[in-house]
């Protein structure tokens, strides 16, 4: 709520103002009727009272606009700031966090829970203040008209508030039940649609329809229970107003006849009592809102209080220009209960080209992901230019690494913007050059707007291979000292691969290059190849050496030759 106390205070004051104008109207009405009954004692004529009422109405309206906008805007502003904070937090969280959370869950918290909190801080606060102001003022005015009548009329109110509170509690329960039923219904549909082939293969269409009907039924029932409770609110509301009016008609009417109360007082009393009905009902609703808002705030707190495992070093070491020497010292890494890397010892000289092969799950990708600290280094050490990675400023190491991830991710922006993502403010020439090395030139000429073609849902759908090459260009434009390619050409055909590889070899220069691949062809020009198995290095050497060794690498090589032979048949 930081810095918003002022807004809330102003809003509260404005609310008092608008309600005072509103409350003045029944009072003026009282005076007007009294003046009509006994014109002699009257201060003003009915017409003048009419004018005063109109003036009060206009003033109430004007202040109303300001009070509502002040408070509701404050709610929106807080929502804005909270969203800002949440996003800022998300930006610092690491891969471990995101793989434990479903994107849908995070998004729903940022949408639904944030809305609940905003409702509480905007509309909830507004209604609460409104209720308090109207209650206090009305009670004072009512007492001024007739203390006895007030006590009679207000007597049932606490009971009403209690009943509404009870009802809103069961409303909360039933609404939860309804939500759960809807969730079941949704799951049912999702499964049926995803498993359409299974359903058809086993002729289960009729059975599916039947069981879907049952799920719909239970949802309908829950919804009807909800409708019933909501409907029950109506008699309660009516009763609140009715008892008051009954008291006025009977007791008040009596008092007027006996001359203890003026007709004007009678009318005004009726007016004030009518004003109280709604805030009384509102009480229960606000309670509900507070409950929901608090629950949502807790869920948001789970994001705000999350902390990443990969953090900035407390005492960072300035590495100067990172040159790209990498050394793993008995580095291990576990993910959940799965050991991904086991005691890796590996020294990579700057400017060397290293190939990494192994089957799925052997730890290839994990090995390279340690370098830009996508995963935390906790067990063992990783040195860059002889400095402990954990002591390098995050920004510096990430600026020095050009990383082409296995799962290509592009933004829904233009191709040029996606490439320039690697280097903010890159010139058109730089972008074109990077695109050319990555083998995109040919594809670009076929796109409607070349480099300015929009990618994604609203633009052109790129093929897997095209996406990979944009992702490569994005890493290249960064001019990194360490270039990491994690299976970058898996979706590219052999000829294109050949072309890109030769263009890339001209780019490598002094850079340290790590290429992860499940195929051997991209590793041809590597100085050294590392074979990983179950998180350990099992073979290491040049292509020729490894072939001669006749182990894993040689086996993979044979397989690939066979494949090629089959392809040629």
């Amino acid at each position, binding site marked *: 709520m930081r810095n918003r106390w002022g807004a809330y205070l102003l809003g509260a004051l404005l609310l008092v103002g608008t309600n005072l104008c509103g409350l003045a109207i029944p009072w003026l009405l009282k005076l007007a009727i009294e*003046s009509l*009954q006994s*014109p002699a004692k009257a201060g003003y004529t*009915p017409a003048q009272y*009419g*004018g005063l*009422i*109109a003036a009060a*109405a206009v003033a*109430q309206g004007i202040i*109303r606009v300001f009070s509502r*906008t002040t408070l509701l805007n404050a709610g*929106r502003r807080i929502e804005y700031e909270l969203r800002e904070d949440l*996003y*800022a937090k998300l930006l610092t969280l690491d891969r471990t966090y*995101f793989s434990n959370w479903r*994107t849908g869950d995070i*998004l729903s918290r*940022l949408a639904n829970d944030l809305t609940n909190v905003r409702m509480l801080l905007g509309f909830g606060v507004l209604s609460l203040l409104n209720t308090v102001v109207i209650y206090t003022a009305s009670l004072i005015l009512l007492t001024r008209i007739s203390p006895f009548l007030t006590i009679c009329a207000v007597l049932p109110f606490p009971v009403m508030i209690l009943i509404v509170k009870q009802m809103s509690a069961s409303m909360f329960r039933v609404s939860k039940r309804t939500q759960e039923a*809807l969730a079941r*219904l*949704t799951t049912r*549909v999702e499964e*049926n*649609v995803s498993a359409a082939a299974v359903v058809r*293969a*086993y002729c*289960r269409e009729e*059975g*599916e*329809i039947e*069981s*879907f009907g049952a799920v*719909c*039924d239970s949802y*309908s029932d829950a919804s*009807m229970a909800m*409708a019933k409770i909501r*409907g029950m609110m*109506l008699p309660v509301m009516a*009763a609140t107003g009715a008892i008051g009016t*009954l008291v006025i*008609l*009977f007791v008040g*009417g009596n008092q007027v*006849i006996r001359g203890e109360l003026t007709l004007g007082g009678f*009318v005004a009393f009726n007016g004030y009592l009518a004003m109280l009905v709604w805030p009384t009902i509102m009480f229960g609703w606000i309670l509900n809102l507070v409950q929901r808002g608090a629950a949502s705030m807790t869920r948001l707190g789970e994001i705000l209080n999350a902390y990443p495992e990969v953090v900035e070093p407390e005492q960072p070491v300035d590495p100067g220009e990172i040159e790209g020497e990498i050394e793993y010292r008995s580095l291990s890494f576990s993910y959940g209960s799965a050991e991904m890397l086991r005691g890796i010892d590996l020294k990579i000289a700057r400017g060397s080209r290293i190939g990494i092969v192994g089957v799925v799950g052997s730890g290839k990708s994990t090995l390279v992901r340690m370098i830009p600290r996508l995963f935390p280094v906790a067990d063992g050490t990783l040195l860059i230019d002889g400095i402990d990675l954990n002591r390098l400023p995050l*920004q510096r190491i*990430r600026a020095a690494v050009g990383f082409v*991830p296995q799962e290509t*991710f*592009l933004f*829904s922006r233009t191709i040029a*913007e996606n490439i320039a993502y690697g280097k*903010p403010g890159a010139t058109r020439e730089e972008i074109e050059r990077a695109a050319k090395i990555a083998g995109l030139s040919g594809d670009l000429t076929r796109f409607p707007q070349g480099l300015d073609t929009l990618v994604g849902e*609203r633009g052109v759908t790129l093929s897997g291979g095209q996406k990979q090459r944009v992702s490569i260009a994005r890493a290249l434009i960064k001019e990194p000292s360490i270039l990491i390619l994690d299976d970058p050409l898996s979706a590219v055909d052999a000829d294109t691969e050949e072309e890109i590889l030769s263009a890339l070899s001209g780019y490598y220069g002094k850079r340290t290059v790590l290429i992860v691949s499940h195929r051997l062809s991209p590793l041809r020009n590597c100085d050294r190849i590392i074979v990983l198995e179950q998180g350990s290095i099992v073979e290491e050497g040049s292509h020729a050496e490894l072939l001669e060794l006749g182990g894993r690498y040689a086996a993979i090589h044979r*397989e690939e030759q*066979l494949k090629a*032979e*089959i392809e040629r048949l």
Partner: protein
Amino acid sequence: MHFGGIYEDETVGKVYDRRLMGRFIAYVLPYRRMLTTALLLLPLIAASKLAQPWIIKVAIDEHIVKGRMEGLPALAAAFLAIIFAESILMFAQVYLLQWVGQRVMYDIRVQLFSHIQRLSTRFFDQTPVGSLVSRLTSDIEVLGEMFAAGIVTVVGDILVLAGIVGIMLWMNVRLSLVTFSVLPVLIWVAFAFRKWMRLAFRQVRARQANLSAFLAESIGGMAVVQLFNRERDEAKEFRRLNASYVEANLPVITWDAALYAVVESLSSVAVALIIWYGGGEIVKGTLSFGSLVAFIQYIEKFFSPIRDLSAKYSIMQGAMASLERIFALLDNDDREPAVLPASEAAKGTPQACQASPAQALQSICFNDIWFAYKDRDYVLKGFSLQMKRGEKVALVGETGGGKTTVTRLLSRLYDVERGSITIDGTDIRELPLPVLRRRIGVVLQDPYLFSGTIAYNISLGDPEALKRVEQAAAVVGADRFIRELKNGYDEEVRERGVNFSAGERQLISFARAVAFNPEILVLDEATASVDTASERLIQQGLEGLMQGRTTLVVAHRLSTIRDADRIVVIHHGEKAEEGTHAELMAAQGLYYRLYQLQFKD
């Protein structure tokens, strides 16, 4: 750079569309009695609303002003009775409307779901799951809202408004006309504000879409953002979108507050007019005090339904858009393939396949079949295969070579484009789908598990299969691990079977095939490598599964091809080689190489 502006304005639909409503009425008709009852309650509710100020008028004029106590208690009792009557009638009306609404929602939902069950496999290839889910959930929910707060309530509001106007005119024409002088302003405000609000709302929705799209993308690509040190830029862009969203909301808040305030003030101004003009009338003796008070109360009741008119308006708008989408899906008739009349399709079928119309399966023939998922991109090009009763045929070849397609065509998940598939000489297109599919048990490569119990996952709710659940589990050896579970066959399977190992999931899907006791088994072996324990489980399961059935298997296991009676090698959509393992190995052709590549362990 601005990245967030890619989402266009959401189009805002009509509030009332005769064509859509006409079609929608058909769903309401079965419940017309309930609906009529609810509609009949409306005048009663309106009357009880209108009676209340009138009672106050009578109380003031006949009793309070005249100082007559007698009759006042009775009047008070009448007032109480009317208020309770109103609330009970309201409750009944709300309940009836909800009931009808829920029934209609139920009917549409089940109809839509049933319709989806009859759509072709291709339809599912092209339609995202999410869009179908929202058709069946959120779009139908909006229809429910229309019942709860839409059309019928508006009719009730109009009745009340008309009643108030009538009574006021009847009580005092001139005072009514003076009071109604605020109405043109009110109507102008209601329409003008609605227009401005709609524009403002449209902007809010567009910017909200931008914000959510950006957020979703950013969370999905967080690793890239961090790898490229772009946190600060992303935060900046997010702040811009966030701010523009909040800014778009502010006018909505202002318009809304203004509308609220104007309606509230106008209603008080109307009261002021009543006092000004009515006061004069009272002095002249042409108006009673009671009428003055009743006028004031009527005018207050007049304004309250006008206040939430805009909310009802947007509900109707949403309902029309949803109806449009729902009907569009219902009109999609990309149905499952139809059954051909028994006739000519059989001609040109090889002799071997035409014989024996006996009950038990004798032969399956694939005759020169061609098939493409897309355009002319043929996956199968003139593939032929004959299978005899009890035979076990293994399909091998490279990924993407068309093996799985062959199995899909047999159960008519897709139809062949040229050629034919016959069972005992009858083209499968001439068999009713359930008849065909009942004979074939399919085990997909990725065993799909539903949320529900294990027993449900094996039987899929089929009563016949349910009887054979335990027996089927025993045949494939799944009974051992199931018995060890806390709840046995009633153990809950969580979403997609995450609480079971890959091997266990496979076994459950094997048991499913056995429980349906098909003559023909179509099996697509999983390619993914599993741990050795799972591998052993699957191995044993497979033996039980294939026992005594005519089996077509897409093979990825050494044991499977060794046990096969015949192996068919598919290469680029054509049959390249055929024979037993020994024969094909001896030939040293394609199979020989594939064997070394795929089955080396």
